[in-house]
């Protein structure tokens, strides 16, 4: 961190996730692509300098009128240019790559942040954004808040949690390792009930029963797409799990749970609390 600040002070540029150096200035017209990074920009106090965000930037509420850029993997070069931004903040998830290249060629400063879930990557994003936006002290306090929250989590038990990504009935996508959900479960001091593969997979009824989760974790949007708790437990296999039998279901806001933005510490505390409560 100190080394990073030093290198910023010395060189006036920082190296982003692509290994490209981006000049540090005080941007006044920011375009932010990605829910997590947009939240960070606002948390760092630069929200009043944001001119447009993508469709996934649903928090905080001030972004609502600025949510004009569509899906962040399908950005329009001229659309972004028409807002004459002096900084475009994207993540490794944003695209298409050709459009990012066009933006750079048109002379728009572009920074690409590592989108991976997990605390180290989040801390990297906080450091880089606070340097870029020239608010290093806000970055430091945000990181302190984060580590304080995480340090507070000391659960008595580590329940087996299964995160279900649902978009309507039929297929349940269940998180393996390496996902934002798996990282959050670990941060909350719990165990991911499903190991053995990376990313999401549709799980069959039998393997859901085999995984025997103590708690089911869903996003609010996911649970709603299944028609609420009753609809969820109608999905094959789920009612035969310890979680299903006892009705232990924890639901959280999509971006809060999976966004790995500034509220990650809060999300971990909330999740940990909810998991303990549901276990009692």
């Amino acid at each position, binding site marked *: 961190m100190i080394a990073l600040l030093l290198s910023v002070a010395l060189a006036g540029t920082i190296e982003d996730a692509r290994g490209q150096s981006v000049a540090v200035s005080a941007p006044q017209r920011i375009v932010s692509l990605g829910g997590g990074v947009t939240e960070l920009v606002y948390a760092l106090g630069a929200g009043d300098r944001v001119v447009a965000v993508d469709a996934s930037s649903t928090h905080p509420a001030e972004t609502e009128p600025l949510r004009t850029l569509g899906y962040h993997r399908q950005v329009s070069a001229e659309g972004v240019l*028409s807002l004459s931004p002096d900084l475009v903040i994207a993540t490794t998830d944003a695209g298409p790559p050709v459009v990012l*290249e066009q933006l750079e060629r048109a002379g728009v400063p572009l920074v690409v942040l590592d989108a991976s879930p997990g605390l180290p990557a989040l801390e990297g994003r906080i450091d880089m954004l606070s340097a870029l936006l020239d608010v290093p002290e806000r970055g430091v306090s945000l990181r302190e808040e984060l580590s304080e929250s995480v340090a507070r989590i000391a659960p008595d038990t580590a329940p087996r949690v299964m995160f279900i990504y649902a978009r309507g009935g039929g297929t349940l996508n269940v998180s393996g390792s390496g996902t934002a959900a798996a990282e959050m479960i670990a941060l909350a001091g719990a165990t991911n009930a499903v190991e053995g593969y990376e990313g999401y997979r549709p799980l069959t009824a039998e393997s859901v029963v085999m995984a025997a989760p103590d708690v089911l974790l869903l996003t609010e949007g996911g649970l709603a797409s299944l028609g609420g708790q009753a609809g969820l437990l109608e999905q094959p296999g789920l009612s035969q799990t310890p979680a299903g039998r006892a009705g232990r279901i924890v639901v959280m806001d999509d971006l809060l749970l999976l966004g790995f933005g500034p509220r990650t510490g809060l999300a971990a505390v909330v999740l940990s609390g909810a998991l303990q409560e549901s276990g009692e």
Partner: protein
Amino acid sequence: MISRPVLLVVLAALAVAAGLAGLCLGAMPVPVAAVPGSLWGWLGGTLPEGVSPQHASVVMAIRAPRVALGLLVGAGLSVAGALMQGLFRNPLADPGLIGVSSGAALAAAGVIVLGGGGLPLWALPAAAFGGGVGVTLLVLRLSKGDGGVSIETMLLAGIALNALAGAGTGVLVAMSDDAQLRSLTFWTLGSLGGARWEVLAWVSPLLVAPLLAAPWLAAPLDALLLGDDEAYHLGVEVERLKRRVIALAALAVGAAVAFTGMIGFVGLVVPHLVRLLAGPSHRTVLPGSALLGGALLTGADLLARTATAPAELPIGVVTTLLGGPFFLGLLARRRR
């Protein structure tokens, strides 16, 4: 019916108008007066007063290659459609029949789902082009018997290979994560957003070659309208004609799909519109389709990038929303 010269002049004017509109309009307000200045600057001159470098870069680095790609891809898809309809003597034929689109989609899905993040920008178009042309060659190979290429077998082989490629894509979809799935979905809806001069340098030869070669097939295709045997007696080498039509269509559609994803509807409907306007002779249908297809796609792209600015609509959605009702209207008028 409109006479051939009138139709071609009108359609050429339409294509030029669509191209100019595409240069002058967009998400970013650029004064029309800045457009010629931008061109002058791009050609190496100094930018005239009042033309900012940013305007010039939007016009020449973003809009101009997009307009050029739209004209070429629209022309290529439409001529390929006209060629296929002529060969199959079936108004419902489109290049999808011989597996170009499904092969390209399978290869594109492979790159998106299995490729990971580190692949170079050209990996997806290269794979899609290879997949499209590869499946078509396979269809052609399977339909070759003792008596030459059988159109009927080709149709059936195309259906079977389309289904197989679709199943392969389905497997990849099942393996994909949320983000990959969305990328794939957007790819199947098409976009001209990837247009750059480097892309045009690659795609132009692949599209211009079939466009220039197609008119040579107009007379034999007209003869083929009468039937295989009749065409043979008129001196048409039917087997060679079939192979050439397939090769040109696969080349044009393969190249178009590779760089813009799947843009539905254009290849099927544009030749029909030309036929409704000026009759079925391929001497009119082929060049007419090229001009109208280019104009339609460029116009559709203009809508796609301005209707929801600063975001963009997938162009496949726009071509269908624009062309569908128009085509239905023409059909209704003809029935009356």
